[in-house]
């Protein structure tokens, strides 16, 4: 059997990316990823190593490129929404939220208060779920094996709640322009209350395993330090930014979906290292739970969908007796609604940072341009700078601490 011809890459071809020592064979080039357990998906890092110390780290992205942004231009506004789930697959409802809110902003659609409260509740649950995956994999990267399974045990409860609402564990597409797909089922409240009851103790459990564990502190403190000014220069957002001591959270800075009505703290840490980012996320889980609690306690009653039939399909019960409803339904699902020739930018705070969508309408039923400003992509830019001079073992911790999702990076 012969090899199909493959372009052989030599050190010389990569000269512009590497240090001078690479050509002399002093340093070793190592591919870390795409098939590597701790690059969190299919991130490829080309490492230039001196022994075990990273001299250069060159991220190579695009292995998970799906062309979602372009594809969305070919679909109507409502139908394109299912694709947003696939962006950051740990924050599916958050992606839905930013997209439907951009549509609502573009066409000027009202959302009933109950729908907003449920949205906040679900998104905060999703934030906890996303942080749980982060904590589990971050722990696994540092070989703390059990924490991974503990985190996934609790995440399962959240996924069950999502399945209860949207019929799907991950790709829910539960939020729709003007409200929700449908109201929450009867078991919803009990399930969320049960989660609120057990979860604080579980977070204590995780912290008992890691927060004061000397090995964990040794592995994370002083590793991958991002100073304040650098964090701003790189355009970092989310816990990665707040770990450097900058109090910026879109939920507080530019409140959306009624976040101004909830009482919560925005945790920050001064350290700027992996440990600081760990602590920020741990506290964020507790804060998110506070928001969930408030949303559940003060849940307004009423419809979960806007009454504007031009944008929101009528409920099924109306289809049997209202000709108008049938027409609306037919028009919405075949043609879709038309959005004005205008553009909007809508940011939300995803578990990873500022998730923004730029949506441009051209007067037709399909978006002219959809662009996502994804936090993972922006935060990933800091990785080469962060990892220089660290050990390979630290690199793994740093990748974990900036919490990237490759679906979010590549789109």
């Amino acid at each position, binding site marked *: 059997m012969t090899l199909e011809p493959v372009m052989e890459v030599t050190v010389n071809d990569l000269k512009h990316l590497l240090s001078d020592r690479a050509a002399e064979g002093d340093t*070793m080039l*190592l591919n870390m990823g795409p098939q*590597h*357990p*701790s690059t969190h998906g299919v991130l490829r890092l080309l490492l230039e*190593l001196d*022994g*075990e110390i990273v001299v250069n780290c060159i991220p190579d992205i695009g292995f998970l490129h799906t062309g979602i942004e372009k594809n969305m231009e070919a679909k109507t506004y409502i139908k394109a929404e299912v694709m947003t789930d696939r962006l950051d697959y740990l924050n599916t409802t958050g992606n839905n939220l930013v997209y439907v809110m951009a549509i609502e902003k573009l066409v000027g659609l009202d959302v009933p208060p109950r729908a907003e409260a449920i949205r906040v509740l679900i998104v905060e649950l999703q934030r906890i779920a996303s942080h749980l995956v982060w904590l589990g994999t971050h*722990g*696994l*990267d*540092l*070989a*703390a*094996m*059990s924490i991974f*399974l*503990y985190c996934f*045990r609790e995440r399962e409860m959240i996924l069950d709640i999502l399945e209860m609402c949207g019929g799907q564990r991950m790709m829910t597409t539960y939020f729709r322009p003007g409200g929700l797909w449908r109201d929450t089922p009867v078991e919803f409240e009990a399930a969320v209350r049960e989660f609120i009851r057990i979860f604080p103790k579980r*977070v*204590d459990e995780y*912290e008992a*395993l*890691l*927060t*004061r*564990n*000397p*090995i*964990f*502190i*040794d*592995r994370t*403190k002083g590793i991958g330090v991002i100073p304040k000014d650098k964090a701003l220069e790189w355009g970092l957002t989310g816990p990665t930014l707040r770990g450097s001591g900058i*109090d910026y959270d879109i939920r*507080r*800075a*530019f*409140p959306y979906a009624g976040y*101004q009505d909830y009482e919560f*703290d*925005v*945790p920050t840490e001064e350290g700027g290292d992996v440990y600081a980012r760990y*602590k920020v996320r741990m*506290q964020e889980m*507790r*804060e998110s739970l506070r928001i969930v609690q408030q949303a559940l306690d003060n849940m307004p009653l009423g419809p979960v969908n806007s009454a504007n039939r031009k944008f929101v399909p009528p409920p099924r019960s109306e289809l049997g007796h209202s000709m108008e409803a049938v027409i609306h339904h037919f028009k919405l699902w075949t043609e879709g609604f038309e959005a004005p020739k205008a553009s909007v930018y809508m940011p939300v705070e995803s578990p990873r940072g500022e998730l923004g969508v730029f949506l441009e309408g051209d007067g037709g039923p399909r978006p002219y341009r959809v662009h996502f400003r994804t936090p993972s992509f922006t935060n990933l830019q800091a990785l080469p700078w962060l990892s220089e001079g660290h*050990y*390979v*073992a*630290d690199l*793994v911790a740093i990748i974990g601490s900036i919490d990237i999702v490759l679906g979010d990076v590549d789109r």
Partner: protein
Amino acid sequence: MTDPLALLGDWLLNLLAQLNLPPGLRQVILYLLGVSVIATVALVITIFNTWLERKIAARIQDRLGPNRVGPWGLLQPIADAIKMLTKEDTTPAAADKVAYNIAPILAVVSVLLIWAVIPFTSQWFGTQLNVAVLYIAAVGSFGVLAVLMAGWSSNNKYALLGAFRAVSQLISYEVPLFLSLLIPVLLARSMDISVIVEKQATLLEMYVVAAPLAALLFFISSVAEVGRTPFDLLEAESEIVAGYHIEYSGFKFGMFQAGEFMHTFTIAALTALLFLGGWQGPGVAQAPILGLFYFMGKSFAVYFVTMWMRSTLPRIRIDHMQALNWKILVPIALTLLMLTPIVDYFTKDLGVLFSAFGGALTLSWRFAALLLTNILVTLAAIEAVRRNAKRNFVERSRFPERPVARPPREEAA
């Protein structure tokens, strides 16, 4: 009560005598039988341990573990072995074929050879060497070679990194390992493991009483020697994928795994023998077979600790690993090595401190003084480490922490 094992031995001797074989051949057959039993026991325990480890890790992690193959998943290791046997055996084209193929053999053989000198009961052991401790140290070092050969010959950069780490870790930790091995030798005045065990006749005569710190040092450095969490740098999955055995597949990989499992149990057994009194326990004088259960019980207790550590602790980093060895373990071991004979010398004429339960709990002045020395050394070491620590020990705030409450920010205009 007679020892069933001894009965079996006598029966075999008689059988061989009836066959009219030349004496030399009879001897060889006896060796073969005895040694095969030992090798089988070691391998069966290893196979059982893979199941046990998965099951216990599963319980720690709140899941079920293997439960499909056989009752409670007991046949899982067999299924694993069959799977590995029927996997393709690949060799990288650029590998050094000879070293590549010898390495897994060496990994198993080096561990299995240690079992020759392990006494299961007062009667039952492969061989009684008067330099058993030296033998263990010598044979155990072969394992390093296996790892190094595997990493180097694979012609793979991850394996190479694993080999680099292995060299620095395994040979570094042999120093405190040997130094702490010396303490039981000092106390027992013998390098013969059977003698060392015999000297630890009662509960308070176990060397873990006289030398708890040495026992701890021995345990820590043996865990590092095996390369298990938190010292699993040589095969750190999340960093260098599988380290030195990354290119191995099929049963060659299986042999590295078997070697590691066997080695882990071996160090547990050695800890039990050297510090916990091995097969000693109530009633062994009357029924030596009981010793087997005591020995296994103690070994599994130590083995459980390694499993527990494995599912709890994160992995240590290479420079910390080196610092722990050279700056903490080695000085402590050297201090102990200096103090133990001195204390031993000055307490040699003192008698029994107290005795209770008809001698079942007897603490001599010698052991009490040694225990006190160990405690003092431990405290001094902790204080020295604390004073010189680069690490921030301020992490002592109330737990769990609550975030600082901040005034809500002004609405963005």
